[in-house]
């Protein structure tokens, strides 16, 4: 089962800041809720794990991440992540192309095309939810990513962002997620797009 998602997140910093952060793979990975890099093999190859909790459901994936392409010119990066659920009954992979573009007012945006593939029990049974859940996860990823960019700056916003980062959960979690979306909503009210 495969779903393709297109996403765009506003970043509260310059494109240069965004690109700088995007190349820090372990840091970027940590924006993915519940994900972490457990082993850096070289600058293109990593091992990592993802723990997902969606409502009552919980899954843990161990896998490999390969950075297949970094294009500084385009500020674009291609990442392939592949993992198998620790019980061996499901597997998931993500082929992600992410790039940073300039936006008005010295700000920037993170854009991404992700193709998520799931096999095994999760695909047979979870298909009904998959698109929505993947979407929710990526939204949280975007919010976390933006926090990191904001945290590079100074002032109250940066302080807040650093606080969010510190609070970021180790897995996907509805409650925390609600918080991050709430913050996103506040930003959209006061951020003055």
């Amino acid at each position: 089962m495969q779903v393709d998602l297109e996403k765009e997140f506003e970043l509260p910093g310059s494109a240069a800041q965004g690109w700088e952060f995007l190349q820090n793979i372990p840091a970027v990975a940590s924006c993915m809720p519940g994900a972490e890099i457990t082993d850096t093999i070289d600058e293109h190859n990593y091992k990592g794990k993802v723990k997902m909790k969606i409502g009552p459901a919980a899954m843990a994936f161990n896998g490999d991440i390969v950075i297949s392409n970094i294009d500084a010119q385009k500020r674009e990066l291609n990442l392939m992540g592949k993992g198998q659920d620790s019980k061996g009954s499901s597997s998931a992979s993500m082929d992600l192309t992410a790039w940073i573009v300039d936006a008005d007012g010295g700000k920037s945006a993170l854009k991404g095309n992700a193709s998520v593939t799931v096999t095994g029990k999760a695909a047979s049974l979870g298909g009904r939810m998959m698109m929505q859940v993947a979407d929710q996860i990526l939204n949280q990823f975007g919010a976390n990513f933006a926090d990191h960019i904001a945290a590079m700056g100074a002032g109250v916003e940066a302080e807040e962002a650093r606080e969010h980062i510190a609070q970021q959960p180790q897995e996907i979690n509805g409650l925390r997620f609600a918080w991050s979306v709430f913050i996103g909503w506040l930003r959209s009210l006061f951020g003055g797009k």
Partner: protein
Amino acid sequence: MIPSEFEYHKATSIQDAIAQLGAHEDAKLLAGGHSLLPMMKLRFAEPPHLIDINGIEELRGIRLEGDTICIGAMTTENELIHSEILQQHCPLLVEAARLVADPQVRNRGTIGGDVAHGDPGNDHPAVMLALDATFVLHGPGGERQQAANGFFLGTYWNDLQEHEILVELRVPVIKKGVGHGYSKLKRKTGDYAVAGSPVVIELDGEVCRDIRIALTNVAPMAIRAEAAENILRGKVIDDALIEQAAAEVLAACDPAEDLRGDVLYKSHMAAEMARRSIRAALLQARG
């Protein structure tokens, strides 16, 4: 299909349940179990602790308080169906409960579990939106009330805070001049809805004073079709307006494609269910 190991705890009171949720990491409440246990048997859910709230009497029962019907979260679907209070004052809920799953499951499945579980296919979240219900939530910090509108945030994701329990659902009595409709399309008995739509209409003479159109299983969570409601609110509803509203319902849908249908089909079915429910609600409101 065997669940993973867990510790089982019986809660004796709401306070006890909250305390136990706090005491055991990653604990889950066991209500009727017909959403949670299948997930546990498939090992998608592996809570290390289950807190059984079936023995808590204060979570059961349906009572009338003025113009409000108070429904204990552990009230089963069949209890909803057979409640005289509901039959008389809120038949929409009876109608909806009748279309949930099958007779055996309705003996175990609870309204609170259905609302709190977070599956967009569950029926009661949309019903609660249409009824403009209020949820009574108890947590470590005490009691709070939350409107149904705003409670449902995404797939398996709602406004229930950590260690909080949904205790009671409060719905207003359906009065004269208020009509309701409930339409649901499903592939077969026991399946989730392809699309469902509960509708409540309040008439002032022939004019629609207020209307709530809610939708099941056509978005990450139960939603209100507000743009459709806005078309009808304040107007004398006729066929042409219903068609305009149905078009807005269609536009409001964001369903996931699965074996029940693709985005197009599900959206069209949501529109059709809304259309049918609006007509039924109108008929009833007009008396």
